[in-house]
């Protein structure tokens, strides 16, 4: 295990005055992976990243990089480099000078430095821009210079603090793909901070979702998306369909629930401890995993909840339905518009339907976080 751990974060807490920006966080970031710290602003992701970079010192806990403890090591002695949120390009230096900046502190002669700069600029398609100044570049170019400057030093870990935030939507999609490709080809560990779940999913091997200074869930990107461990993660990942019910029984790997909106559902336990009978629990189903039917499918073993259509938004590719169950719970359903439009428009607000889903798509929620896998 330690051999393939790039950054080991152990029980790290950072307090500013009374408030803990980062609260007892432990994470292992693997060598060569694209790891995202995801969360809303103020969740502590940037502070955690800055602690890895050495710009903040943890109040408690330790950070090791490639097995060496770096908790109190200043930034200039760490084998990591950072791409700053607004790039932090030196406005008084040219692109070439920016990229060469860090190389000056390496045992390297002038020609070697020049070669390295040319190499990195080439890699990021910046050749020919050496003599420009940052204020003569476009946003995308600046972002690449920031990347080139950090990569020139061949860091073991590259830290990226929302580096795409300043780009427009279209460019952003492009750069996401480029970044991912670059990371794969270089094999460097990337630690990427973002508040955009889609961005995180597009690029990351693994994701840690943070909330109020704590890691709510960390794991493979797809798993975090598909099987959020907490209500917060579920919400943040855009799965806001919460069902509640009480445990009837918990045979083997499943839990049988009596839903508060009516009907029964057998939900996979996901390996956690089995709840006791009678306990109230909640689970979540992603909107695209929900289906609206005219008929109750419970008899066929498909959980079905009676709902009323409240609203419908046609989005071209899909239609978003808002429905409500008898208990007042609201649900959102994404329906791919595979059928002709006329047919899908048959349900008007007020129509009484059944909300169906596969039991395997239901994710049982646990209180609190810490679902590291």
């Amino acid at each position: 295990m330690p051999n393939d751990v790039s950054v080991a974060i152990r029980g790290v807490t950072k307090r500013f005055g009374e408030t803990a920006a980062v609260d007892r966080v432990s994470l292992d970031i693997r060598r060569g992976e694209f790891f995202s710290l995801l969360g809303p602003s103020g969740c502590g992701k940037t502070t955690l990243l800055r602690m890895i970079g050495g710009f903040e010192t943890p109040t408690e806990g330790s950070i090791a990089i490639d097995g060496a403890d770096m908790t109190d090591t200043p930034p200039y002695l760490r084998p990591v480099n950072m791409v700053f949120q607004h790039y932090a390009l030196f406005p008084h230096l040219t692109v070439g000078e920016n990229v060469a900046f860090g190389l000056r502190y390496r045992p390297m002669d002038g020609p070697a430095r020049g070669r390295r700069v040319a190499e990195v600029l080439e890699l990021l398609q910046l050749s020919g821009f050496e003599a420009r100044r940052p204020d003569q570049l476009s946003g995308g170019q600046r972002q690449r210079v920031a990347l080139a400057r950090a990569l020139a030093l061949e860091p073991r870990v590259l830290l990226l603090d929302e580096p795409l935030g300043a780009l427009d939507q279209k460019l952003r999609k492009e750069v996401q793909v480029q970044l991912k490709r670059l990371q794969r080809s270089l094999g460097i560990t990337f630690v990427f901070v973002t508040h955009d779940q889609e961005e995180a999913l597009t690029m990351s091997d693994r994701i840690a979702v943070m909330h109020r200074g704590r890691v709510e869930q960390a794991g493979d990107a797809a798993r975090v998306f598909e099987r959020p461990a907490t209500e917060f993660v579920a919400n943040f990942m855009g799965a806001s369909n919460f069902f509640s019910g009480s445990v009837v029984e918990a045979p083997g790997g499943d839990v049988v629930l009596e839903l508060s909106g009516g009907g029964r559902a057998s939900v996979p336990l996901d390996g956690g401890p089995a709840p006791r009978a009678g306990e109230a629990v909640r689970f979540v189903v992603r909107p695209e995993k929900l289906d609206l039917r005219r008929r109750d499918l419970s008899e066929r073993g498909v959980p079905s909840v009676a709902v009323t259509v409240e609203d419908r938004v046609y989005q071209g590719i899909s239609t978003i339905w808002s429905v409500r169950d008898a208990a007042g719970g609201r649900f959102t359903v994404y329906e791919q518009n595979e059928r002709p439009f006329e047919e899908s428009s048959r349900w008007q607000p007020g129509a009484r339907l059944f909300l169906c889903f596969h039991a395997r798509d239901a994710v049982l929620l646990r209180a609190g976080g810490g679902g590291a896998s």
Partner: protein
Amino acid sequence: MSADAGGGRSRAAYPLILPTWAVLGVFFLLPLCVLFVISFAQRGTYGGLKPIEDLGAYVLSGKFLSHYARSLHPIYLQIFWRSIWMAVVTTIVCLLVSYPVAYYVAVVAPPRRRNLLLGLVVIPFWTSFLIRTYAWMFILRTEGLANRLLMASGLTSHPLELLYNDFSVLIGLVYGELPFMILPLYASLEKLDRSLLEASADLGAPARETFRRVTIPMTAPGIAAGIVLVFVPSLGQFIVSDLLGGAKTILAGNLVQNQFAVARNKPFGSAVAFELTAAVLLLLLGYAAYTRRRGEDVLL
């Protein structure tokens, strides 16, 4: 968010600030304290200070406040009033003269000319203040340039009395303080968003209304800064009124200067000096309250 924004106090600041504390503490605050103490003492017969034999009795007699009491005498109140009045007039004239200049440089003039124009505002101040003042005496005196020009042009038949009066003092004060008004006004006019002016015009406001209701309020911080920068030094001036005013009037600055340099009454001079300082501080407190409310400070 910056690294320290959320953090507590940083010890790293002390090595940076300590030298300044030391220099200003020893060579500024300490001397001022000495002077402040002196303002409660009595003048010795030959200048210097009269030794105090019984401090307790001295304090109880209230004599230590005698200089402050003396400064409330109508003669001195009249001097203070005059000084304030001159400073106010200087400030108003500077403001009226500077605003169009700053407006022209910041808004009307082509942008590439702005630095040149600003430079031209400052360059005269690279010559000695004394020489500049003297040059004005040279221009304004009875047989000076202004009168020669006036008489040559036939505007007057006999020389006008231009020197040694309030008019010449005012010219000297305005001349000396003008850039301190133009520069902050320029700073705030330059930041003025032109689309606001266009928006106002678009909403149907005539040019004069736009100026009164948009431009002036938007540049109020610059106006406030300029007023402070001009008013404060005008209040303590004494060389201008000596040279251009022919020493015929006394301003607060002259009063202090006389007490130190001529009357050798250091205690009284110190008392007046501290009163002057207090007046200036009061003005600045007002300014600070204004900038806090406004949340914008052109000075700092």
